[in-house]
């Protein structure tokens, strides 16, 4: 199972505690993880990426295995440790005041 860590605001919207565990077919990419996340939690559609264009919202970032993968192509395979579930895929709200 893929492990996903959501920011607190999105955990509360989805009504969940802790990590999300998702079944995602290979290849595991940003897009395939977000597709599975939005299918499981429809109320999160539009909060991480645009409903229509599927573009990442400007103040959201993605980290994997201590690397910033925000600007990797959405369909690029993520590290094996993400695909195996050894490491979580982190969805982060940018630190930008507030």
């Amino acid at each position, binding site marked *: 199972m893929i492990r996903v860590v959501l*920011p607190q*605001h*999105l955990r509360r919207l*989805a009504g969940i505690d802790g990590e999300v565990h998702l079944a995602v077919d290979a290849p595991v990419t940003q897009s395939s993880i977000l597709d599975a996340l939005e299918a499981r939690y429809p109320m999160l559609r*539009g909060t991480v990426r645009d*409903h229509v264009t599927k573009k990442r919202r400007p*103040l959201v970032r993605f980290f994997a295995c201590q690397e910033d993968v925000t600007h990797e192509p959405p369909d690029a395979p993520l590290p094996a440790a993400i695909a195996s579930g050894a490491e979580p895929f982190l969805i982060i*709200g940018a630190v930008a005041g507030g």
Partner: protein
Amino acid sequence: MTAIRVLVGTKKGAFILTADGKRKDWSVSGPFFAGWEIYHMKGSPVDPDRIYASQTSSWFGQIIQRSNDGGKTWEQPGTPREDWVENQTSGVDPETGEFIMPKGESNKFAYDTARRPLTTHQWYDGTQHPWEFARVWHLEPSLHDPDVCYAGVEDAALFRTTDGGKSWHELPNLRGHESGPQWQPGAGGMGLHTILIDPKDPNRIFVAISAAGSFRTEDGGETWKPINRGLVSQFIPDPNAEVGHCVHRIAMHSSNPNTLFMQKHWDVMRSDDGGESWYEISGDLPSDFGFPIDVHAHEPETVYVIPIKSDSEHYPPEGKLRVYRSRTGGHEWEPLTKGLPQQNCYVNVLRDAMAVDSLDPCGIYFGTTGGQVYASANGGDTWEPIVRDLPAVLSVEVQTIR
């Protein structure tokens, strides 16, 4: 038993203040949606337990929340958490027996580019800039159907739901109006912030946009007419232009939908012909800059404004928080000060942050950027704070429940 419910949207969550008809002892619930900006909440006039809320964030975008029990519990329409996440088998249509797949579209505000291509409007510097959805500024439930609600959004456009908020559809001919390239954002963005539905004709709707001006439809949103004749704005090259005016708020009394009262960027204005022409009624106000304007529930010629010093100094003149009341439909104004701070007060009161109840005597409510919500149970003669230390208040609505 009569009750009052005040819906307060703040920069960091929503609060609901309730009291009985005496309006003396208030209880405060919240924060709901803690940490999010709640631009606006409003209840359905036909079903006061049905409340719509606009929850927004620069990080995670637009969320629409809905309550069916007067604000005790909330859900995103079409994706109730209990049904979907914790007990997926309950998501079955009781009539057809089919599984209802939640679409998660209650947050989807996509411009209808099939009917009206995405065009551009003026940016702050006068260059052209494409329309981009940012947030819902104002929610206006139908006067007749609790499942119908209008949403005024930034960048300016009007959306409508007919299924209780599960999905939203643009009425694109407003955004697509030929004057669109001349519209420009105010300091807070190019928001559609005022939606007034004619109580006698649901197809007749007035809207106002910063800084485009006011518009009227007579056919439920198919065609729109700019109604800004008489408005004068020094910040546009032609001060009398058809569009480009920074209207801050329009108010109407339900008994007379042809008389409109407007607080503009500067100037308090009035129209007696449904917006065809406007004239100034600022009279003896200490400043005619301000944001909210409202009308007494039972006296159509009694109007309230809260003067602000200037467009560059968004706080009350002389540090005195004063509501001004005109009982003559404008021109002559009296300060209402009892119970309001009369020194060292430098808060602002935003455009959607004043409301009136429909009890007798009429109650007036407003919230400040300093987190106070003030109430008057006697038409403005005296005021008391209901709460003093909320986050900055963005919006105040009141429900009179009988």
